[in-house]
């Protein structure tokens, strides 16, 4: 069986500016991979290329063995995402948003699926409210419900808990963890919260200036590089990327 996500030698250049430079990595089934790095490191660019809203300059992306460049729709049928910068349209209600996106993803038994997600993400009382009037935390939960609609094999989460209070963030992390371990789903997760990353991710990739500098278990990686915490390691990557090499 192929990996959920296989990225090979992926690059993106804007003129002379290199956003991502020849990165390769995989996400396996039931694995949560953290994509870490300072602002401008290339995390969102990478996610956008996986989602096929940004064309790579070179390299290949395969989701469930399907080449995204050649069979975009098939590859994205088993993918979904939630990002803090991509709220659902505020002029539709919570239910309408989920219904429209459920149709786009071709979800079977859509009404039942929506009911289950509304309950799971505690959105039942907002079902007929316009999404735009929800608080940022509620909107984040709605985005996550949308991201789970099609039971994706690959889930891309770009700072999914950025606007949540600590208690809700912990609940959400638990739900995503359960989601990843229950089926055959793999998750690519970006976050600037290193405690969250250590808690959730099985493996992390540190990006800096478009390159993967480090890769490993978030619980052991700091010690391997002489740092006591993941946050210290993050700061070192951000400030002195040349001093670190990919293991």
């Amino acid at each position, binding site marked *: 069986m192929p990996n959920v996500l296989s990225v090979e030698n992926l690059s993106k250049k*804007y003129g002379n500016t290199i956003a991502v430079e020849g990165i390769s990595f995989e996400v396996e089934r039931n694995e949560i991979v953290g994509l870490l790095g300072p602002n401008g490191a290339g995390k*969102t*660019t990478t996610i*956008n290329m996986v*989602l*096929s*809203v*940004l*064309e790579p300059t070179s390299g290949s992306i395969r989701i469930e063995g399907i080449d995204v460049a050649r069979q*975009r*729709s*098939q590859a*994205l*049928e088993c993918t979904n*995402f939630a*990002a803090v*910068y*991509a*709220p*659902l*349209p*505020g*002029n*539709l*209600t919570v239910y*309408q948003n989920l*219904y*429209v*996106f459920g*149709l*786009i*993803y*071709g979800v079977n038994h859509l009404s039942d699926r929506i009911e289950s997600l509304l309950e799971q993400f505690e959105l039942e009382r907002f079902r007929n409210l316009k999404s735009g009037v929800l608080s940022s935390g509620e909107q984040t939960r709605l985005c996550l419900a*949308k991201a789970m609609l099609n039971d994706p094999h690959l889930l891309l989460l770009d700072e999914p808990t950025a606007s949540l209070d600590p208690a809700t963030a912990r609940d959400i992390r638990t739900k995503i963890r359960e989601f990843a371990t229950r089926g055959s789903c793999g998750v690519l997760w970006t976050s600037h919260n290193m405690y969250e990353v250590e808690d959730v991710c099985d493996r992390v990739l540190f990006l800096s200036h478009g390159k993967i500098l480090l890769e490993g278990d978030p619980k052991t990686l700091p010690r391997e590089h002489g740092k006591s915490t993941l946050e210290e390691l993050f700061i070192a990557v951000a400030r002195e990327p040349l001093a670190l090499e990919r293991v």
Partner: protein
Amino acid sequence: MNLSRTFAIVLRHFYLVRGSPARVLPLFAWVAIDMVLWGFITKYLNAVSAAGFDFVPVLLGAVLLWDFFTRVMHGVTMAFMEDVWSRNFLNLFATPLAISEYVGGLVVSSMGTSSIGLIVMFVLAGAIFGLSFVSYGAAVLPFLLVLFLFGVALGITGAAIVLRFGPATEWFIWPIPALVSPFAAVFYPVATLPTWMQYLATILPPSYVFENLRAIISGQAASVTALIWAIVLAIAYVLLACWVFGGVYRHSVRTGLVARYSAETVS
């Protein structure tokens, strides 16, 4: 092409229209005002002009058909602009939705909204001013088809312009029908135009509609050849517009515009 995805785009627009009086009113209000205004103008012209000539089917009929064309074009563009205004591109285009399914959804949405305007115009023009489309005969069907197709073509082109150059360019899009109308000879024969404008009229499908409309009213038969040519021309424009939109979309994916689309990043 997955029809369920196209239906999702149509349903999204239906939800928006259903839930908003501000979106419902323009579907029929402006065309109703046009019918009333031009209806009285034609009545006045009938009263002061030589006996025997009826301005209602020539002038009011032309206004009705032109308004239908405008509604079709604006219907496509409006459905697209809803995604611009709600910054929905990333959500939409990171799904399995194909660009043909998306554009198909915009066109079907426009078909629905423009039909409402057309029915309102038919009712008002018929009930108050006695305009009967029976007087145009079977030619009214190709008339509507040509104007619908050309409206779709301009609507898709308008959407491509906004996608390429940013939301601020929407103000170039809305007046496009007014820009085209002098060349399309809506209210006067093509022969009235200077030669260079006549050349432009020959490549505009609506000019064949309005030439034939006047021919029928003056007792001549509609030119089947001209109407077939107008349909072929309009289909060619639709295909060209789809090609342009596809090209602009691919450019936007290459440069990252789709991922970062907003007034700030594009304009």
